[in-house]
């Protein structure tokens, strides 16, 4: 019995490990191929560029991972991010309020939008796909309305830009000028991992995704937790909104469409099951890196933009297919 227990544990560890190895291996292979193909690829600036590109999509993917683990979906993360960015701009530039207040406004906007998603899904029982599709359009429209269809620039507040593009790390270790946005992403990933694996919200997310009805009949307030989880996804979108605004030094109201699909792709490549009940933050982070590395590398190799999309699309399907094969 004891021996059996040990083999069992080993096999559990193995299947998890293989999944991460697969995505991680693909990432390494990409790095090798691109660095052989172009000497510029492994340059410090380019790697920082990849990290920066990952940061925004990565933060979105973190939030969406929680929702997907519950067997839900959030299509609104991209435009909610934009709305949050615009709200930050409205607070800081239009209303001349202090920067911290602007940050708070951005993150709260995201959280609020998520809460609305959660309410519509959990209380009104609208399927997540439809509820968040609605929010996608609502947030997009509101972003355009609030900004008056024009970008809002943060030229009066240089400290805002440094939130993303300054380098605290560079100050401590000279030469390692890694932008704060990247650090913020890693920190957010650590928090997300902690929430998903160590806390009650994570455990209920898995339980709801695995069997929602059984979870409800266990006396868990499923509706409440779902609202919380969608709000959490919204909070991450808000954070992404602040990051992208700070990075571009402007809130671009027309941006954001298509970001939700990259975020979902990142989670799925990382092994989060759209059927719910499965997923890891590490996987999502690797998935986000994979996507931005691919985009970056293909651009360096001067592959036209339109072909880049073809390739990323293929990769997502292949990744999910490999995951299915692995499970057999």
């Amino acid at each position: 019995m004891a021996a059996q227990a040990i083999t069992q544990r080993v096999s559990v560890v193995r299947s998890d490990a293989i999944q991460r190895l697969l995505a991680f291996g693909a990432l390494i292979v990409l790095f090798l191929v691109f660095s052989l193909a172009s000497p510029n690829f492994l340059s410090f600036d380019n790697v920082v560029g990849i990290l920066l590109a990952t940061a925004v999509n990565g933060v979105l993917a973190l939030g969406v991972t929680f929702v997907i683990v519950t067997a839900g979906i959030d299509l609104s993360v991209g435009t909610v991010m934009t709305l949050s960015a615009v709200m930050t701009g409205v607070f800081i530039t239009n209303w001349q309020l202090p920067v911290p207040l602007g940050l708070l406004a951005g993150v709260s906007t995201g959280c609020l939008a998520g809460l609305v998603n959660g309410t519509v899904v959990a209380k009104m029982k609208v399927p997540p796909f439809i509820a968040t599709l609605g929010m996608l359009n609502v947030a997009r429209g509101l972003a355009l309305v609030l900004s008056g269809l024009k970008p809002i620039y943060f030229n009066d507040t240089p400290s805002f830009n440094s939130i993303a593009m300054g380098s605290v790390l560079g100050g401590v270790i000279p030469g390692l000028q890694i932008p704060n946005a990247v650090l913020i992403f890693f920190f957010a990933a650590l928090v997300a991992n902690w929430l998903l694996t160590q806390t009650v919200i994570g455990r209920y997310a898995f339980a709801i995704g695995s069997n929602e009805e059984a979870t409800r009949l266990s006396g868990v307030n499923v509706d409440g937790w779902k609202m919380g989880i969608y709000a959490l996804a919204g909070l991450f979108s808000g954070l992404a909104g602040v990051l992208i605004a700070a990075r571009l030094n402007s809130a671009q109201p027309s941006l954001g469409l298509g970001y939700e699909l990259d975020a979902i792709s990142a989670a799925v490549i990382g092994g989060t099951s759209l059927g719910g009940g499965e997923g890891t933050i590490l996987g999502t982070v690797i998935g986000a890196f994979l996507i931005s590395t691919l985009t970056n590398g293909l651009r360096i190799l001067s592959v036209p933009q339109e072909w880049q999309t073809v390739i990323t699309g293929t990769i997502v399907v292949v990744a999910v297919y490999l995951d299915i094969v692995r499970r057999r």
Partner: protein
Amino acid sequence: MADELLVRMLGIDKRFPGVHALDQCRFDLCYGEVHALCGENGAGKSTLMKVLAGVYPKDAGRIEFKGQEVEIPSPRAAQKLGISIIHQELSLMRHLTVAHNIFIGREPRRQLPFLLDERAINRHTHDLFESMHVHHIDPRTVVGELTLAMQQMVEIARALSLQAEVLIMDEPTAALTDTEIEALFGIIRRLRDRGVGIVHISHRLEELKLIADRVTVMRDGRYVATVPTAEASLDQIISLMVGRTIYEATPELPEQPSEEVVLRVRDLKRGRAIRGVSLTLHRGEILGIAGLVGAGRTELARAIFGADPIDSGSVEVNGRLVHIASPCDAVRHGVSYLSEDRKRYGLALGLNVEVNTGLAALKKFLRWFGVVDFSRARRNAERIVEALSIKTPSLRQKVKHLSGGNQQKVVIGKWLTADSNILIFDEPTRGIDVGAKSEIYRLLNDLARQGKSIIMISSELPEILRMSHRILVMCEGRATAELDVRQATQEKIMYYATQREATLDVA
């Protein structure tokens, strides 16, 4: 007629990762025979039949069909040979009509090939049912509106329309009432008389005498014996199945429960399902609820538990009027519900034993800020596994890999963790093999002795009579009788469950 071999399986071997599911198994089936396949859960009955039906490929062995060796690599190949299987979980498309379900994939067409010949489909279906002597199913009904028993008839009709000569039925009677079972057996007998070979997998041993010509017993993936039903006693078959003497609960009527009322339900109503039911439950008591399928027993349990809203009525727990609007409220008042459908309503199958045992009471294992104290959760799970002797290789084992009995124990463990004092068991032993059944019985008795109060819904009258202190009989949403177990008999219960003269031609 009954000695010509239709199917012969020899030396069948099948391994799944970590399990030797079938070890040199054999089985044969004659024309015009009902051959029962018995064994505890995990004995390999379903696996063996899925090999025959092409669901699983065999690792080794030989299958002969009408004297010729055949390979059956897919369900389609099996169908072509005339081997049909009716799975335990029916596989019908709920939104399509009866006729469309039967002819899916081979619908009669009109001249233009993309136009379905609706009339022909319905006529063929009608003829099929006529040939089965089933007259109450309209081919145009949407399957989702049929009862489980009628859906089963549809599955049988589908098999017949495929010219099945071998019909495998995996636990066909598990969800049926006695009348429905009798109707099903009528159909099975008629098919047998037409020369169809029928494999009947069942947990209900008392059925064997009624329907089976021969019984093959399996244990732990191995063939044990084949005996003609007429010559074997039930006791013999049981001892072949378990390979040991089983725990027979001495009908020690547990000491009388205390007079203290822990649960009082008054005039509960919910639509047409529950039309005014009142009941009381004492500390340390097992209250059995008997009734036919559709009597409203499950609906009553779910309503008390807050899983479904009620129209009117009141619930008192420990003498205090409480408002239970959701399972969340019920758990707070120490009321729990163990569904008959564990897989759908009781367990998060894809998650492990530890998570499942903690699901109803995660709050007990939290530190500051919603952080789960994993060591405490694990210790609790260890305690539960130990106390209920759950057979699992580790706490990290996914619940879906456990046997039915052990899954049921995980659900019980979940509620013990939540400190529930009132446990409502809905068909606690459904789909559980003989050995594990007696363990569950012992567990219920222990719980009652420890002062837990139990409501047990069951369709098996011997089970009700053996376990309960008092019996509430329901019929069509009403409580028709409350019997003390000392004066209750199967006949009496049936009388009240039907509200008319008890006609017990079954069993």
